[in-house]
């Protein structure tokens, strides 16, 4: 399985008079791990939501493997088949066990119960929570919850992983572990990963960094490799 190619073309998003994203363009190649950095309120979350078809642009477009995601008739199916989301807040369903939470995207896809269970257990083992499959979110630490959320994002074998401040609520050790898991997922499955974070130091884990400020891409024409970023 290869990652998705993401092309963002002159993308803008406004809520009434407030322009959150203004004419943003860039390309993410398949299998890349890209860090989307910038201060809070700079438009990172909006950009990820537009790429992931959770929202529609005011103008411009996002192409994921040639498909214009803002014009999809069935965006839920696109998300189910192509995208894995990780949010700052884990958004685990409190009534479900860790395993059932991981199974959710597979349920949406109509995967058989047996296969769901096998894949969920396998993923939980990969994120180091094989022994916590039956635990409820309230019984897990913050880092563990986020690892369950990553396992959930990987469950549908997505070609594009969008992570919005996945380490925002974690301590440094847990943050490091989350980044490792995302890097590992990118390397193993070949998925394209875009991680939004206000912490620029975490960008050192990425293949390259895109910096966004006040809805503008800082260097829209130059894709700066992460290792050259100060």
């Amino acid at each position: 399985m290869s990652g998705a190619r993401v092309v963002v073309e002159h993308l803008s998003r406004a809520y009434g008079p407030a322009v959150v994203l203004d004419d943003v363009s860039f390309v993410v190649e398949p299998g890349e791990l890209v860090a989307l950095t910038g201060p809070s309120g700079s438009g990172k979350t909006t950009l990820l939501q537009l790429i992931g078809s959770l929202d529609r642009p005011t103008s411009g477009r996002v192409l994921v493997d040639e498909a214009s995601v803002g014009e999809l008739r069935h965006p839920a199916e696109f998300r189910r088949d192509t995208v894995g989301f990780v949010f700052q807040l884990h958004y685990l369903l409190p009534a479900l066990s860790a395993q059932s939470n991981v199974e959710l995207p597979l349920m949406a896809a109509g995967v058989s119960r047996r296969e769901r269970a096998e894949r969920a257990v396998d993923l939980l083992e990969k994120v180091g929570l094989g022994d916590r499959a039956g635990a409820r979110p309230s019984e897990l630490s913050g880092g563990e919850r986020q690892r369950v959320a990553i396992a959930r994002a990987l469950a549908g074998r997505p070609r594009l992983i969008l992570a919005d401040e996945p380490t925002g609520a974690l301590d440094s050790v847990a943050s490091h572990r989350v980044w490792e898991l995302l890097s590992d997922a990118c390397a193993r499955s070949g998925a394209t990963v875009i991680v939004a974070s206000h912490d620029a130091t975490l960008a050192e884990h990425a293949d390259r960094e895109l910096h966004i400020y006040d809805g503008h891409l800082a260097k829209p024409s130059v894709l700066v490799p992460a290792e050259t970023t100060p």
Partner: protein
Amino acid sequence: MSTLIQTLGNLRGRPGRTILTALGTALGIATIVALLAVVGGVKHSAGDLVNLGPSELGLFQADAADPTTSILSTTLITRLDHTPGIASATPLILLVNGLPKAPGSIVFGAEPHSFVSQGLVYSSGGQYSSGSQIALGDTLAQQLHATAGQTVTIDHRRLQVTGIYHNGIAFQDAGAFIPLSTAQALTGRPGETTSIVVKLDPATKPATAQHTITKRFPGIQIISDAQQATRAGVSGDLISQFGLVIVVLALLLGGIGVANTMLMAVIERRSEFALLSAVGFNGPQIAGRVLVESIVTTILGAGIGLLLGVIGAQLLVDALGAQTFVNPQITAWDLGRGLLVGVLLGALGGLYPAWRAAHVSPARVLAQH
């Protein structure tokens, strides 16, 4: 199956809300079941009011509200006796609420030597004959602690008990027989009767006799079996319609209650539905989960409601003091209808909340956090 398991998990996770919603549904369904049972019992009782043999017809005034309010002239008896195919005709008066100590009992006024009175089988004492005598059904006698030789009072008139009978007809065993003239005096309607019971010649088919009587005696309604008696009464129809109104009201109120509770649940859990949408659940899938949750909750309520309804039906009859002549009739169909109402409540009450859940904007909700 997984959706159901997850739904049960969701419901367990919010026990207070689940129990309250289920209880609201339970009360609505209990009301429906209890009313259906009582209406069924009343209808069944109405059918028993006029217990007719295979070659007998009951004649009532057409358009009477119910069999007890019919008024016919006794002059019809002679004309009926001369009608081809009729062996005998006898008047029968039905007195309701004649006995203050047994308000549900019916006192029948019949000629002592008529075929109606002659059908009574006495376990003690014997047949009544004079105007101040009364024969009690054994159920009524037990209720009044009365025996043959004692007196009972009907409308300030003291009547001597000549015998205690039992003939297996609930209304008659829970009632009493007095002479027709006494009954006419008590009602203040000399020369009138509530109904006329007609015995046919053995060779006459009931349908033929009905046709003849209808032709000769316009304004008379003929009843040949208990089912017809049930259908004949306007009161029976009113009771049925009243029951239907209550059912519809319970459905409406219950549906609104369920809709309100489920809507609150959806609003509280917007982030959950936004997350489901983000991980790939489409609108119908999300709506389906809400509907399943709503229906499971109301089925749970229906289970409790059916139980409460069965208990409530008897309590309702007791509270109305009608236990002597109304025995709540609860059929499997009544219970099935109760359950069906539960499913309907869940489905109808869950529709709008399901629509709301399916249209939660993941971008807006997840960004708010």
